[in-house]
């Protein structure tokens, strides 16, 4: 094995072990084209069919749906040096078309909550190339970023279609959860529609876990929001 080939794809940062989370939106999207391309490929490997998941890089049919528009907002973690996508989530305001209303409405017993301060989180993806020992940390950083983005944008609640086995971890991280309907089996996994409210405890506990007390969000020049 070549020297260094075993090493993590995440370069340890000089000032700790924090990968910043970028807010990608319509205004700064061109700055992130390489990362977004890799994100759609990683999403295909994560959410796609088993055949597509076996492929790598350009061989993969990118996972892009009607909610991936030019003005969609993503929270994105990437390796600055290689422009490689590491982890990301998609944020959609519920005042516009989003997955829970359009695709998964059957998971809700009552009307899907929609308001300016309720956004949907979907397509949470950690690149399958990220070593297992780094994945949990990237997910925790994404959770911090979602909470910080909520504070920044005045978002009080997030809705999401969530695998039920992740619910204890999310609640333990300080996210208050309210089920919107009973869980159902989708693609072999038990998933449920939930409304989450990030609490100050959520931020504190996630930051404790990473031994980090600063914001993980990076506010790039040229962003619209």
């Amino acid at each position, binding site marked *: 094995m070549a*020297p260094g080939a075993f090493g*993590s794809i995440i370069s340890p940062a000089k000032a*700790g*072990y924090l990968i910043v989370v970028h807010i990608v939106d319509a205004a700064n999207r061109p700055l992130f084209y390489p990362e977004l391309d890799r994100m759609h490929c990683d999403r295909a490997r994560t959410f796609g069919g088993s055949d597509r998941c076996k492929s790598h890089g350009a061989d993969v049919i990118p996972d892009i749906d009607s909610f991936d528009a030019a003005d969609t907002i993503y929270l994105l973690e990437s390796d600055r040096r290689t422009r490689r996508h590491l982890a990301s989530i998609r944020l959609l305001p519920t005042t516009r078309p989003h997955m829970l209303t359009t695709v998964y409405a059957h998971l809700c017993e009552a009307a899907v909550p929609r308001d300016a301060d309720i956004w949907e989180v979907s397509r949470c993806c950690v690149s399958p190339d990220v070593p297992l020992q780094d994945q*949990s940390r990237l997910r925790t950083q994404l959770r911090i970023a979602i909470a910080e983005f909520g504070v920044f944008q005045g978002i009080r609640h997030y809705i999401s279609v969530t695998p039920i*086995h992740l619910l204890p971890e999310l*609640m*333990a991280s300080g996210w208050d959860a309210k089920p919107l309907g009973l869980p159902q089996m989708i693609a072999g996994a038990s998933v449920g529609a939930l409304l989450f409210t990030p609490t100050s405890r959520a931020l504190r506990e996630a930051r*404790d876990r990473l031994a980090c007390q600063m914001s993980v969000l990076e506010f790039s020049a040229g962003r619209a929001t």
Partner: protein
Amino acid sequence: MGQFRDVQTFARAANEVCTIEELSGLLASAVREIGFEYYALGHHVNVVKGKLVQIGNYPEAWMATVRAREYISDDPVLMACQTSVAGFRWSAVPTLLSLSKRQEQILLEASRAGLGDGFTVPVHIPGECAGSCSFAVRAGALLSDAPLPAAQYIGCFAFEAARRLVRSPAGGMRARERVVTPALTSRQLDCVVLVARGKSDGDAAQLLGISAETVHQHIEAAKRRFGVATRTQLVVRTLFDNQLAFQDVIRR
């Protein structure tokens, strides 16, 4: 709609209970509402102190047997939780692990003691002891699929309520005693993975393209962060805290 309303009611009430005893009573009523008779909720450890919880209403005769014969450490349902993140019916346990004779005996004796078919919701929270919430019907009663979705939610909300209670100041853990998981750098984790795989500092140095002395320093720094004295303790702590996964260490 009925079971969903039961779940909503339970989630709200669980969020407000102030004692483990209250939670225990609430859970006993909720499981009967959705069609079960028994429940057991807890962390998967033998020693209960401080931040851990174990509550339930299994038949007392069965619990006495479990304690007398030390069945907890071999309990096939609890062991199946280690192989599944998703909720599972007890009838599926033989598909999740190969049962020893002792484990077959445990299932048989549980049934004789009055525990029928059941459903278990495993709880895996990084950095914490594994746990679960199990629901069971009386021996001889039929367990349909109908209550399982509600059981999944009730198990999750009940476990979180129990966590909150045992970690609150009144539950024996003061705010200043909050456990902060030490964070290792990526390079430290790379070194710990190789230690866990049995590599020497020299071998790890070659694989990582750094000097053996640097590997040694990374390991020593990681030990200091966790406050442990030996490499074995370091590996155990990183696995326990979910900073490393068993898949990182064990290649099949």
